């Protein structure tokens, strides 16, 4: 058995007395801020950025609290606490987001300090999950386990989490600031659609360093991050980022909320001028004060030491047998299980996208079950992926069948990771105050329409991403098929884009034609799939076929009648 005492928390940064002191003080500070707001000493205008900095939004029905899951990694103990909070202070469920966080939808302002206290008990907080500051840094959900990993992104994501915490200079930026790190050959963190995207690499001497992309982002004006520096050595990591943030804080636009992200600055200033400004700052900041001490990196790395893997043969006979006997399980393994770097282990994705379900939602009972399974099969650790699924990163191949049986019994055994049913959808108009249209009902209709597992595998790799407004929290621009909700004279309409790609070959999708109603949209997606299947040649993914045949056949099929 791989059972690990809950306290061991393999692969989780664990707080020491100093971290605990800080988070405790921060909760007390917020408690006083809430009191000052309720007493009228702080106006709503003044309080809003403060509550946002603590993860608290006001949404359609109530306050929404966004809990930070640093770089998407947490322990079973932490997940159980999240379940408990969901039962005590919310309505028995939570929503996992594309930022690898967890949101509760029915929170009371007056309960928030108590919730933050409960989080602090398990080394968690909600800091900087919103507001115009540096947000929770995201990374590859397979970090520390993937076969193609070069550098462990958790180490640097944790360094950034700490470094940016209540950063005195960068807490009132022109706009929010999102950083993603990928340390593997394939980019599973969508680095080029972030304000700063980092590829962690190694040079010939084996030293870690970073390639910096700046100015990517979705939203009203989508941009793909531009290469700003090919190599930043580890010791300069923080100084270089400070230089970028300082240039942004000084020159970023503050006159128009839609032009305030760093992507617009890079675009308006021009890449060369932007680079020159950053280099100038960097040259000065590069001294000893902002040097990242290798001793600190080494110490933080100890938190992410590999769990005590058993020595196992490369492949498991038990797994082969179970697959042969149970086709549904074999299908789940083929779709939801990825290769692990340790022999005899595997990475299992738990899909939070059952046909007809609400993408990313999990009940507190499901959270408890996942926590149990993480303890039993994955060293007490799990991850939230940016496609709103859960990952158990270190499962023995021998254990996969037992794991799947328990997941399946709880409605968590859907085999659709990366397939058409694995839809990303933002909360949309059902919850979000900024929405133009609902996203969830469309995701439900689509996943029900494509529920058949055989059909899903026939269609192959195809990501549908849905946003309820142009803020693009559902990443629709980079969906192979993207759907954007729009409001036309009070009626919900949906605009379809095709050809988006979040990986290193980043592409923003093109609009296929006029927006459609919800019902028409579901039919149109099915038509797109049929056209693809009719045109594809051996081994082509949807994106490949689309690139080869162009929009013509798809448009014709959907809009021919007009």
């Amino acid at each position, binding site marked *: 058995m791989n059972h690990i005492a809950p306290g061991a928390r393999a692969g989780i940064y664990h707080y*020491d007395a*100093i*971290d605990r*002191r*800080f988070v405790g*003080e*921060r909760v*007390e*500070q917020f408690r*006083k*801020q809430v009191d*000052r707001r309720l007493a009228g*000493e*702080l106006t709503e205008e*003044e309080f809003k*950025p*403060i509550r946002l900095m603590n993860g608290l939004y006001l949404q359609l029905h109530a306050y929404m609290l966004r809990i930070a899951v640093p770089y998407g990694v947490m322990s079973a103990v932490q997940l159980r606490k999240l379940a408990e909070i969901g039962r005590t202070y919310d309505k028995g469920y939570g929503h996992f987001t594309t930022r690898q966080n967890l949101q509760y939808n029915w929170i009371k302002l007056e309960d928030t300090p108590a919730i933050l206290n409960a989080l602090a008990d398990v080394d968690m907080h909600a800091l900087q999950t919103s507001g*115009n500051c540096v947000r929770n840094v995201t990374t590859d959900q397979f970090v520390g386990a993937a076969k193609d990993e070069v550098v462990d992104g958790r180490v640097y994501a944790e*360094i950034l989490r*700490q*470094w*940016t*915490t*209540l*950063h*005195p*200079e*960068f*807490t*009132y*930026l022109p706009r929010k600031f999102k950083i993603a790190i990928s340390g593997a050959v394939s980019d599973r963190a969508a680095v080029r659609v972030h304000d700063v995207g980092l590829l962690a690499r190694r040079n010939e001497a084996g030293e870690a360093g970073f390639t910096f992309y700046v100015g990517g982002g979705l939203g009203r004006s989508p941009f793909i991050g531009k290469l700003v520096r090919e190599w930043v050595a580890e010791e300069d990591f*923080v100084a270089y980022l400070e230089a970028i943030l*300082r240039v942004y*804080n*000084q020159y970023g636009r*503050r006159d128009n909320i839609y032009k305030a992200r760093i992507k617009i600055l890079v675009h308006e200033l021009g890449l060369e001028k932007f680079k020159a400004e950053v280099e100038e700052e960097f040259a*000065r900041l590069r001294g000893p*004060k*902002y040097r990242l001490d290798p001793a*600190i990196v080494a*110490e*933080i790395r100890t938190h992410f030491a590999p769990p005590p893997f058993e020595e196992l043969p490369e492949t498991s006979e038990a797994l082969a047998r179970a697959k042969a006997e149970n086709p549904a399980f074999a299908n789940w393994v083929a779709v939801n299980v990825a290769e692990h770097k340790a022999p005899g282990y595997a990475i299992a994705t738990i899909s939070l996208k059952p046909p007809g379900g609400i993408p990313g939602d999990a009940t507190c009972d499901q959270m408890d079950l996942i926590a149990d399974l993480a303890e039993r099969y994955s060293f007490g650790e799990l991850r939230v992926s940016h496609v709103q699924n859960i990952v158990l990163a270190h499962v023995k191949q021998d254990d996969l069948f037992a794991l799947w049986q328990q997941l399946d019994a709880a409605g968590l055994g859907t085999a659709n990771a990366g397939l058409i049913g694995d839809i990303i959808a933002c909360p949309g108009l059902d919850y979000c105050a900024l929405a133009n249209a609902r996203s969830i009902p469309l995701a439900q209709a689509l996943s029900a329409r494509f529920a058949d597992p055989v059909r899903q595998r026939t269609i192959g790799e195809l990501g549908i991403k849905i946003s309820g407004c142009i803020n693009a929290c559902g990443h629709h621009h980079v969906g192979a098929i993207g759907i954007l909700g729009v409001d036309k004279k009070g009626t919900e309409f949906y605009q379809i884009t095709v050809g988006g790609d979040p990986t290193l070959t980043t592409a923003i999708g093109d609009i296929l034609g006029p927006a459609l109603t919800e019902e028409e949209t579901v039919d149109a997606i099915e038509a797109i799939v049929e056209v693809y299947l009719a045109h594809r040649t051996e081994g082509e993914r949807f994106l490949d076929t689309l690139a080869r045949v162009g929009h013509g056949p798809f448009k014709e099929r959907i809009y021919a009648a007009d």
Partner: protein
Amino acid sequence: MPLIENGRIGEDAWSFIPDGEPVPNDRPVIISYERWQSDRASFDGRNARLGVRLKSGTLAGAIAPDLDRFALVALEFPKFRDGRGFSTARELRERYGYTGEIRAVGHVIPDQYQFLVRTGFTSVEAPEGTNPTSWANALSEITVAFQPSLDETEPLSLLRRNLGLAG
């Protein structure tokens, strides 16, 4: 308006002279950066201390060549959410070696006080009727910092530092 210094309400020796009004020669005054640009010759030979007030869009580099003429630089926050002043202050200190007083003026809230001190501000002009306790508390509520800055901090371990700010 109350002046906050070291977590307390302090004496303000300075006054701001709006553009167009005569500038007294016998006491410390703050003038606008615009006035300094157009009338700088008129301040030649002045003995009493001079301060300059920068709008948030005016960055540190603009005043850098003249910093030795000013005992005080006031940085304006048009809205407390406009955080450019934090970078301007830090640049004044770190890049241009300015050692005089840096004052935050305009819309600033106590919840930003620690950030102001950490980026090199020495004083804050708070709004009339402000609650002094909130300013005092702001310096002692949080005692850990996760990055070096311009204040006196003492490294603890990893990136963490002790904030020894409570005045």
